């Protein structure tokens, strides 16, 4: 693989997204959402204080609202990542742009890896900026700062990169619409499997646990989502919940006392490599 060519494709990808004003629209929407979040949490805190709610309760309430906001943001982020990445190669092939590029001494693997790097930079940058901005605005309006904001944002970006990787890899073989739609469905299924797996675990339904666990390994976004929650969950909530609900808390997708195990993180990194590899393999066999 020639680094110069990978970098050329990476820069082309970033320039494409910037020129097509996708970034501008995304940041515009994010800024609007963050302002809305700021206004909403400010109102929540003001009304609660007027009603005489205790400061501790308010802080716990805000922390849970922040987790819910992060959850919605993770969905939007995943959808954005899927619909940015699905056409990255698929539309090059559909439009014919790929013909002129691949007639040059550019390997198909270099095109895929260059595209992935460019998209990863955009997705991580977007998730990082928007996530930290939202946390910062909530901290400014309510005084609540989650225990590990960088961990939360890091896992949020990681989750989005996983979604982006799947959409890009599927797009090497499938039309962009199909690749995007399949990715979103798989992402939603993985999240659902996470909740269902928690319920199964709470009720010791081993067969169901096995099935949902398999899906969570095949698409590790849910495990990474637990990392986001872990970064946002105040220790006080852990103290309140601990010991009161037993295994049942596992079924709650908005509660996590521990970060995802190291094996899960390592598997997620390996998963990205495997899926990119599969995408390259599929693309190399595709007739242009």
């Amino acid at each position: 693989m020639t680094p110069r060519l990978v970098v050329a494709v990476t820069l082309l990808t970033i320039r494409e997204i910037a020129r097509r004003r996708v970034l501008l629209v995304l940041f515009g929407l994010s800024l609007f959402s963050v302002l809305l979040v700021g206004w909403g949490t400010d109102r929540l805190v003001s009304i609660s204080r007027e009603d005489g709610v205790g400061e501790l309760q308010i802080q716990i309430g805000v922390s849970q609202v922040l987790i819910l906001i992060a959850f919605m943001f993770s969905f939007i982020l995943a959808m954005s990542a899927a619909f940015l990445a699905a056409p990255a190669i698929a539309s090059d092939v559909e439009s014919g742009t790929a013909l002129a590029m691949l007639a040059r001494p550019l390997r198909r693997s270099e095109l895929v890896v260059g595209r992935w790097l460019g998209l990863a930079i955009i997705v991580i940058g977007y998730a990082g900026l928007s996530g930290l901005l939202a946390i910062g605005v909530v901290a400014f309006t309510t005084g609540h700062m989650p225990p590990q904001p960088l961990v939360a944002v890091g896992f949020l970006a990681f989750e989005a990169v996983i979604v982006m990787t799947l959409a890009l890899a599927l797009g090497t073989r499938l039309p962009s619409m199909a690749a995007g739609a399949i990715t979103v469905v798989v992402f939603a299924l993985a999240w659902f499997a996470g909740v269902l797996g928690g319920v199964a675990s709470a009720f010791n339904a081993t067969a169901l646990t096995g099935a949902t666990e398999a899906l969570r390994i095949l698409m590790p976004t849910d495990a990474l989502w637990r990392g986001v929650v872990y970064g946002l969950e105040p220790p006080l909530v852990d103290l309140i919940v601990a010991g009161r609900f037993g295994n049942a808390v596992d079924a709650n997708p908005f509660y996590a006392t521990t970060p995802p195990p190291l094996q899960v993180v390592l598997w997620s990194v390996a998963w990205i490599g495997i899926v990119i590899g599969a995408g390259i393999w599929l693309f190399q066999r595709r007739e242009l």
Partner: protein
Amino acid sequence: MSPPSIETRGLRKTYGRTVALDGLDLHVGEAEVFGLLGPNGAGKTTAVKLLLGLARATSGTGTVLGRPLGDREARRRIGYLPELFRYQPWLTAREVLALHCDLAGLPRDRWPAEIDRALSTVGLSARGTDRVTGFSKGMQQRLGLGVALLGDPALVVLDEPTSALDPVGREDVRSIVREAKARGTSVVLNSHLLGEVERLCDRVAIVHRGRLIASGGLSDLLGEPALRLRVTGIDGLADRILGAFGPVSADGEWLVIRPLPPERVPDVVAAVVAAGGRVHAVDPGRRSLEEAFLDLVRPTADGAA
């Protein structure tokens, strides 16, 4: 001795049960302008894609610029204008050319001169900083030609290079091809426009239903030169007078002498006039490439894709 620009043996490509190309043998020499002809669906574009490594041959072998098909080193020295020419619409023409300079591995200090030269050659100097999205199809095809000519390639493959161009653009393409040949570049011209091919190509290959049905120099394909005459006043003597120059046949009001070297045309006219005949029209020439092409393709054209 330099290797041939293109050499293929038994190149075959199938898509499922469809045979797109069936045993193609090609030889394109150095600095040769080679025409690849054929009706729609004949397999011309498939052949080009196999040569460039954009598709893989089911069987058969070949070399391009002395390297195996699809070889990266060879692709460094090939310029290609696809039939489906599309370039990043969000880039300017200069940026598209810079991208291809980068992909082709040209030293960065050569880029500005190469880009200026390419834009000037294809008549887009004034539009270099405009985005491709505002370009007409003809301008995009011109840009594609510029992309193909970057870095002075040893081989240029042009797939239907004039499909979106007006007559002025077509003449420009002819000049570009002639200049490329003069610089020692081999050109493969894949075209439906037989007039273009006839004017430009040293040799042609005709592909039909995936098979090579004829190839060679234009003189081989077009047959011997002939003379068509419309004369009066030599009734009954035509065979004797004209027969002295070569075999004579009738074609409606016309008499045809084939073969007849072009330099003998004045002698034929003089002989008719000397015998008291009147010459109304003289048409020296031979079969056009179009006639030769139709003769080759028509017998089997039924059901062609």
